[in-house]
């Protein structure tokens, strides 16, 4: 608990002056709010007495009321803004810090957490914190100021009546507190039920082909109805609480108003107080009830806010898991790459994904990795790119253990094309120029005359595709734009790496979704990187594929099977040996001879 508040203080500290001023405004607001009914009552009292003096007095009181009305407009506005806006500031700072921290966390962290969960922390939980420091902060202070002021004004008006009224209102408030807690329990449950319902919808839509093939629509509908029905039943329970439980506090206020009429009226009859006090009292009561209602909601907001803060703290305090770097290394261009008895097991794996893999890639040469799905190819690329952290003493660049090389330096020297190409929802041009500073900044005009870009497009066989896009390079792609085909995405991802062009090039099965004609051209383009125009020196390259045709030109090829190197050698050697590689080569080779219809 304490740590949560320390954490909160870290973010709220800057806004303390605003909160202080807000507190003053809040006091002023409440002072005016309880004064208004008092003045109304006073005016009614003098009017009851009658006479010209009364007329004069009551009209003065009316003018005073106008002034109070103006004042309340100003101070109430200020008090709310001075509490709410710092809440927004804090939400903003928290959000940016969370995101910044998330960016520094590596793959192992993302294997443990789903993106949806993290997005929810960065958006929903920061909102809950904002409500805690804004709305809840305001209400807590408000209650602290307003309840004493209201009680004071009521007591000053008539102590006996105050005691009479407090009884039902207190009961109402206690009931409300209990109801709100139950209500939130149900809301949480209903959110879960809604998620279950959505899961079922998604599951059915995903398996629609199976449903249809087996004419199982009715069963799918029945399964959906289970969830739809349980959600409806809960909603009706929520509705019952909302209709019959929630208004109880308000009703208790009205009951108290009835008591005011009964007991207060009697006191007026007995000459113990003037009749205008009835109006004062009723107005104060209703205002008090309003505050108590807000209090019940606020308690819920506070508990949710604290839970959210805890979740945020957990993410922000996850260490970035980057080893301290003792010496600054500069890598050669191109660097040498060595694997020494590399064995790697995933944190949640039982068996090693890679077992005793060794290789030496001389500067500017190409290492090919061949293997079937699940053989450990991608793991190897991820370790080389330091997406996963290899055990110390197993992966070296220029004779430096990668675990002790600054990650920034290493990545600066590396261009990676991951297996599943990821395009951001921005223009194709910006996706390709991701390597440039500030790729997401709005740039009104961009020249298509970027020579490098054109060269890269040609190398990745993307020119024709770009021509066919509605806005060419300015077409927005990705999730919220034009969806490119798998092959197009792969080529765009390749083009992006070529645009960046670094001395170390890692290609993870990047040609799996392109047809064979294009594959041949792309292989040619990759091969031409040696001494080509895109680079000065040929990069040190590691290329992964399950197709032998992609690997033919590699200086050495490792054949992986279940994480172990089962064969190694040049293409010619491997084919001659007649093992797994040769077998696949024969198989795939005859396929390409037949020619692909296109």
């Amino acid at each position: 608990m304490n740590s949560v508040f320390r954490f909160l203080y870290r973010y709220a500290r800057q806004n303390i002056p605003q909160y202080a001023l807000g507190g003053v405004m809040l006091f002023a607001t409440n002072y005016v709010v309880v004064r208004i009914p008092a003045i109304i009552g006073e005016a009614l009292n003098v009017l009851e007495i009658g006479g010209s003096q009364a007329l004069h007095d009551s009209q003065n009181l009316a003018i005073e009321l106008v002034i109070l009305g103006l004042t309340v407009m100003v101070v109430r506005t200020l008090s709310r803004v001075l509490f709410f806006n710092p809440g927004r500031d804090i939400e903003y700072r928290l959000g940016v810090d969370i995101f910044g921290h998330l960016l520094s966390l590596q793959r192992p962290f993302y294997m443990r957490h789903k993106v949806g969960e993290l997005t929810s922390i960065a958006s929903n939980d920061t909102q809950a914190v904002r409500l805690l420091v804004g709305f809840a902060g305001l209400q807590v202070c408000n209650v602290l100021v307003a309840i004493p002021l209201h009680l004071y004004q009521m007591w000053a008006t008539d102590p006996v009546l105050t005691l009479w009224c407090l009884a039902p209102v207190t009961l109402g408030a206690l009931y409300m507190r209990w109801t709100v807690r139950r209500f939130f329990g149900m809301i949480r449950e209903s959110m879960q039920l809604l998620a279950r319902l959505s899961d079922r919808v998604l599951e059915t839509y995903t398996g629609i082909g199976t449903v249809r093939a087996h004419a199982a629509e009715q069963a799918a509908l029945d399964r959906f109805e289970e969830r739809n029905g349980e959600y409806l039943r809960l909603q009706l329970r929520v509705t019952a609480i909302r209709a019959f439980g929630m208004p109880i506090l308000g009703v208790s206020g009205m009951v108290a108003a009835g008591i005011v009429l009964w007991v207060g009226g009697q006191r007026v009859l007995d000459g113990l107080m003037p009749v205008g006090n009835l109006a004062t009292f009723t107005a104060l009561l209703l205002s008090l009830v309003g505050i108590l209602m807000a209090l019940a909601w606020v308690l819920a907001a506070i508990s949710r806010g604290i839970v959210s803060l805890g979740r945020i703290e957990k993410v922000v305090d996850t260490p970035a898991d980057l080893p301290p770097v003792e010496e600054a290394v500069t890598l050669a261009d191109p660097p040498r790459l060595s694997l020494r008895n590399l064995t790697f097991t995933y944190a949640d794996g039982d068996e090693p994904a890679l077992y005793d893999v060794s290789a030496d890639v001389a500067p500017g040469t190409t290492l090919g990795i061949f293997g079937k799905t699940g053989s450990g190819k991608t793991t190897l690329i991820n370790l080389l790119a330091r997406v996963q952290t290899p055990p110390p003493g197993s992966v070296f660049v220029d004779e430096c253990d990668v675990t002790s090389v600054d990650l920034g330096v290493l990545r600066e020297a590396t261009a990676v094309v991951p297996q599943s190409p990821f395009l951001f929802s921005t223009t194709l041009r910006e996706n390709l120029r991701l390597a440039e500073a500030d790729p997401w900044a709005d740039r009104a005009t961009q020249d298509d005359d970027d020579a490098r870009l054109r060269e890269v497009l040609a190398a990745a066989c993307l020119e024709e595709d770009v021509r066919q896009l509605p806005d060419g390079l300015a077409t927005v792609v990705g999730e919220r734009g034009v969806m490119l085909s798998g092959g197009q995405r792969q080529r765009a991802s390749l083009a992006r790496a070529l645009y960046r062009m670094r001395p170390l090039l890692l290609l993870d099965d990047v040609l799996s979704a392109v047809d064979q004609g294009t594959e041949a051209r792309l292989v040619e383009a990759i091969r031409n990187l040696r001494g080509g125009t895109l680079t000065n020196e040929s990069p040190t390259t590691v290329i992964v594929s399950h197709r032998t045709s992609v690997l033919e030109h590699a200086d050495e090829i490792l054949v992986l099977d279940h994480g172990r190197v089962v064969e190694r050698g040049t293409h010619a050697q491997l084919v001659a040996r007649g093992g797994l590689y040769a077998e696949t080569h024969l198989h795939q080779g005859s396929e390409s001879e037949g020619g692909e219809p296109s």
Partner: protein
Amino acid sequence: MSDRRSASSATSKSPASRPDEGPTAARQASAISLLRRFWSFARPHRRWLLSGLALIPIVAGMSTLRPLLVKHAVDVDIPGGDALGLRLTAMAFLGAVIAEFLCQATQMYALQRAGYSTIYDVRRTVFAHVLRLPNRFFDNHAMGSLLTRTTTDVEALSETMSFGVFTILSDIVIIGSILVAMFVLSPKLALISFTVAPVLFFLVRYVGAALRRLQLEVRKAQAGQTGFLAEQLAGVTVVQLFGREDDARNQYARLGSRYLRATKRANWLDALLYALMDGISAFSIALLLYFAAPEVAVENGAISLGLLFAFVDYLQRVFGPIKEFSGKLATIQRAAASLERIYGLLDEPAEDRAEPDARDPLARWKGGLHVRDLQFRYKDDGPDVLRGISFDVAPGEVVAVVGRTGSGKSSLGRVITRFYDGYRGSVGLTGHGEAGTKAVELRDVPPEQLRRHVLMVQQDVFLFNDDVGFNVSLGEAGLAGDDERLLRALRVVQAEGVVQARGGLSFSVGERGDNLSAGEAQLLAFARVAAREPTLLILDEATANVDSLTEQKVQAAIEQLLQGRSVLVIAHRLSTVRRADRILVLSEGRVAEQGTHEELMANKGLYAELYEMGFGEGEGEDKDKDEKDEADRE
């Protein structure tokens, strides 16, 4: 499948997703038709709806009555010193409070119940409709947007039904009855009190409109920021590999400050609107006191003190709901947009369905096929995938279909199961009992009747997150719950042992079958076939690599399935091809050769070539490569 969708989605962004534009008049007209259509969903729940609506005037009456009772106490009971009368009045007041509470609670419950029940029906209707949409629809629409229609949009509607519409209605009635009471009691005082009303009206309108604009901007900014966040996290590795962390963070901060600016300004306006109400109510009471004072202060003036009491009470309540109006109207507008999107989906034409008690046209079908000059294309402006295929399948015959990727063999199965309609040429379902019965044309058989006889098993097995029993029966009446039949089906495909070892039919397969291996999942899919005993089986043999033990079981299971029925098998295994009675070799949408294995091998044509390759298709990852090629070609 995803790739075919991607190529076309560029051109076919659904018109329903476009935000509502166009002239106001048209929009109002459409609002009425939206409502009329919505009524068809609400009709079954009209009892709750109407009884809720009927209570609104009672609630309004009660809440207007209370101040009148106070007036009576102040004007009659107290000056008259009538203690008993005062007590009676107070009791009446308490009675009114309780009655108002009960009526209001019941009204609220009834209306929300009607609302939620209606939404429940809408949700079911949408879901049931999507189940019946043709495959082509799924090719052109992302799963995400369909999910949104069924859940998020319906939920937006639900929120409005429960909070927006009905509270606005009851607020209006209450305000109206208060106004009536005030004008009846004293038109003069009412007019005096409401001299501030025009000011109020303009302020609320002005501030409210500005606030709405800002809130729109807030939502946009927020959506932008959240969208960016989600995408960056999804692609976080790329961001890191390209060293773009700082830029991403800066961009997030930029998007965040846009949101921050908008929300801060919205806070100012919101606070102002809130404070305005406090102020205005004080002003109107001040006006009331100032101008009424001369008449009250004078003995026997036209205005009684009690009247002032009543007016003070009314004035404190009458302005309250106004500030909420604009916000509620905005939710209603959002709901209308959701409703429009939902209708857009419901208007998509669904697959044909047979009449509920229609005769089964295939009741005596023995599984013969008579295909002549079959032509088919996925899109009207696309290339033909099948270009005039003719072949026959005799009842009980096993026909293997082989061909390269893109030859049209998968499409053939999709046409014969009516997953895709619109073929040209003829597909006759022949062999109905006694010889000489006429062939039934495929396009005349409603899909769900057809699929009770023609079953297609696809390469990628889809398992529901449920138990083994459900995954085999798929809830089919007569099958679900009949453990004996289900186990027998599992036995046929040699999966009974595996299933029993795991805990029997009630073993949960996990999300997308995570608790089973790929081979075991295959076997379950085969058990579905064995349990249904289709007349014609279309089997798309999987190429996925399973361990050799399971592989043997899969082989054996396939062998079982091929017996006793007509089978069209898209073959990838040599053993399957050899087992077939006849082999159909497809190339570019045409039948290149057909015959037995021996005949075709002797032919030394395409088949012999494919045979050399082992009929495989790489690693089986391009299961829909034929469509993909097509998409790429466009």
